[in-house]
């Protein structure tokens, strides 16, 4: 039986995604073996993470300011919005340094099996944002699944007749994968979304 505080730590940490009880135990013992300062800065980091972070009221990004730095940056292309499922996806796309437009976080995908309906997502706010704006293109970066594709189609349907270009990310073979291992389905999609060289 672990001491009460350690037990509490293990129970809480094992609720984190990807962390089981065994890993949680290891983390607990590791923190105990470190100087007090480490434990203090770790607990501060967790504390302020939630206290300082806000959701941007325009795009749904996680930020210390509202609106966020991406929304207030006038150098960014104001005519294109990239629609993502979660705020984390913004950081994946930003890391490529190739995209210079705006973002919109849906907060998930339509999935009645999980009780998630269009009204539970930030679709209404996206439509409002586009209304009367200079948006010319929407890039859907939703996942290439039944739910991701259907969510994109649903939004496309809502914007019918608005004269906005709508695209989704190309699908196919992951970079670095040899053709023979790509699998028929990936290969098929890659051929369909081939591009000029």
């Amino acid at each position: 039986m672990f001491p009460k505080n350690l037990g509490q730590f293990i129970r809480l940490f094992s609720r984190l995604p990807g962390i089981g009880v065994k890993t949680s135990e290891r983390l607990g013992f590791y923190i105990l073996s470190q100087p007090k300062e480490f434990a203090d800065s770790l607990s501060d980091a967790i504390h302020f993470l939630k206290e300082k972070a806000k959701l941007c009221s325009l795009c749904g990004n996680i930020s210390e300011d509202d609106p966020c730095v991406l929304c207030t940056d006038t150098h960014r292309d104001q005519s294109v919005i990239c629609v993502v499922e979660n705020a984390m996806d913004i950081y994946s796309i930003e890391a490529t340094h190739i995209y210079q437009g705006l973002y919109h976080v849906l907060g998930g995908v339509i999935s009645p099996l999980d009780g998630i309906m269009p009204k539970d997502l930030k679709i209404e706010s996206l439509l409002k944002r586009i209304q009367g704006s200079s948006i010319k293109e929407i890039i859907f970066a939703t996942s290439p699944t039944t739910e991701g594709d259907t969510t994109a189609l649903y939004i496309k349907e809502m914007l019918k007749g608005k004269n906005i270009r709508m695209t989704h990310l190309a699908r196919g073979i992951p970079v670095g994968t040899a053709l023979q291992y790509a699998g028929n389905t990936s290969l098929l999609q890659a051929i369909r979304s081939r591009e000029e060289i």
Partner: protein
Amino acid sequence: MPLEKIKILRFRNHKEIEIEGVSATNLLIGENGSGKTNFLEAIFLLCRASPFRSVSFSDLIQWNENSFYIGGLIDNLQAEIGYSLEKKVLKINSKTVSFQEFTSNQNVLTFLPEDIFIASGSPEDRRGFIDKILSSLDSEYFFALQRYHQALKQRNSQLKLAPKDAFIWNEELIRWGSKLIEKRLTWTQLINKSIRPIYYDWYQQEIELKYLNTFKIENSIADSFAKTLEKTKIQEVYKKCTQTGPHRDNFEILSRAKNSRFFASQGQKRAISLALKLCFLENSEKIFGGAPILLIDDVLLELDANRREKFLERIGENYQTFFTATSKELLPTIQRKARVFRVENGMILG
């Protein structure tokens, strides 16, 4: 040679098995429950990364253990599949790969006792038989089937929660559903071109695979599907589930216009399932190339010796094969050319 070596750890009733020098023809002899079928299932997993009957991965782990491992040398590639704590790991040549990458390596086709349901089972059983064969031979079909069923589940859930928005799922349903129907039509034609001579040679009867779609196809499949969904709209709101589509398609085996469930003997029913699988096998080779590994589990004894030989002749030396039987005297032709393994309580003695 497709499969040359195999190592199995903590899988079903096999604690530890390591076999080198797997032969082109292999015969596993053992009592029922000794582990012959489990061994075949291990080979299947190594090719398709999924079990051949619908069970969860955790059910495949040996009793009182918490992980299993299967590794093998297939076509000079080291394939490995491991499962522990709800996590699956697939590797080719020690590098973690995706499901698609893993399964594009080697095809496999099973001949199992329950295949007889194509001639005697419910409409679900018969559809399941066709779906299973096509899923293991045609990866595009497999993908379309998964996407279709996911869209169907979401749509049915939508019909229960907010039926007026069910249309959201139509595009996905129609897209993948049409693909399934198109492939089922094409395959039914191919099968009917080749099944007559095979079965006639065995039973001097003509048989035919009949595919019954749930709606009439005019112009394109997708358009007809869309129109039918529109027509069943009111009915499905009331029934709270999708009323039309390939999940309700039907397959029948007909002989001189009589339905196989009413005429065929046990031996005939078995012969029908074997002949069908042979046709799928031979046609898929013509389309995709590459000879699948054949796993033939206890299905030959219902045929009389003469027809059994005809079946084996047809397979010939074209495939790597794994047969199972309770005694080697039962399959003399196989025994002569096979490497014979004895299976006892999960141990394999070669």
